[in-house]
């Protein structure tokens, strides 16, 4: 499990780049079944500009009403990972991603690295705000990419 995993997203348009980091991701991976759970607080996303953070929380994510985003799923090919052998394995994760109170099925490819006393999980995928009923006014829409690039990075250590 980890309590300080990282999830970030990035949007690039000719108008501006937007980047947000969250280093307070709680996640549990059960290596025997491949079950994996992520939980984040929307308010933990940190932007370079204070005003962006405010708009993100108040206008788009409505984080007072919907404070958490979660993912519940499974690494479908966990059996191909040899936990006793160091190395990086390609994995596929499938499950339910809940953002802004809307749940969608997602399927994401990533890697799982077996290292000394830790498991490092990494993934990148795209997320379209409209699929999670996040409405962005037309004037601002031009400044935000249609699909945001999401980066996930976890360093799991065994539960004590």
């Amino acid at each position: 499990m980890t309590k300080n995993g990282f999830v970030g997203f990035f949007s690039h348009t000719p108008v501006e780049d937007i980047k947000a980091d969250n280093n307070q991701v709680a996640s549990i991976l059960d290596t025997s079944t491949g079950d994996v759970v992520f939980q984040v607080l929307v308010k933990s996303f940190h932007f370079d500009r204070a005003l962006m953070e405010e708009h993100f929380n108040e206008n788009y994510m409505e984080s007072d009403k919907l404070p958490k985003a979660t993912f519940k799923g499974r690494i479908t090919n966990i059996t191909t990972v040899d936990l006793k052998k160091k190395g990086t394995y390609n994995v596929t994760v499938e499950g339910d991603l809940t953002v802004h109170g809307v749940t969608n099925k997602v399927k994401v490819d990533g890697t799982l690295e077996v290292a000394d006393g830790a498991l490092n999980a990494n993934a990148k995928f795209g997320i379209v705000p409209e699929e999670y009923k996040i409405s962005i006014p037309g004037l601002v829409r031009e400044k935000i990419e249609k699909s945001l690039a999401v980066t996930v990075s976890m360093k799991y250590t065994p539960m004590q």
Partner: protein
Amino acid sequence: MKTYVKIALGVVFFLAIAGIGTGIYLFNLKPKNLSRVKADFVITAPDIEKAFEENEAAATARYVGKVIEVSGEISAVKPGENSSVSISLKTGNDMSSVICTFPPASKTEGLSAGQAVVIHGDCSGYLMDVLLNNCAVASK
């Protein structure tokens, strides 16, 4: 041109400049460094954890979005992604701590487990632990 028209034009011009200036200022405003900011609440790590554990809704309404000055003993210092640092504080509950996340390039050298510390942070809420974000060591 009549004088009052000139004055009116002058006022409009002045307001436009002031408006643009304020806009640029707000647009570029960086998240605050909290080390010298006066905290909304001063509390110990065990007390704030207890508040969230006993009544999450009430504690969320009271603390989330506020600047918290939390004091406690460090249980762990963990590096995170992009050179951020997470410092956990002991709460008396083994399953749950107060996790203070410092943004990249924070001054956290010399902080290690067992030390007593006072930290300012934005409370973002409660998952398994109480989470403080954008943290800084309180300066005296």
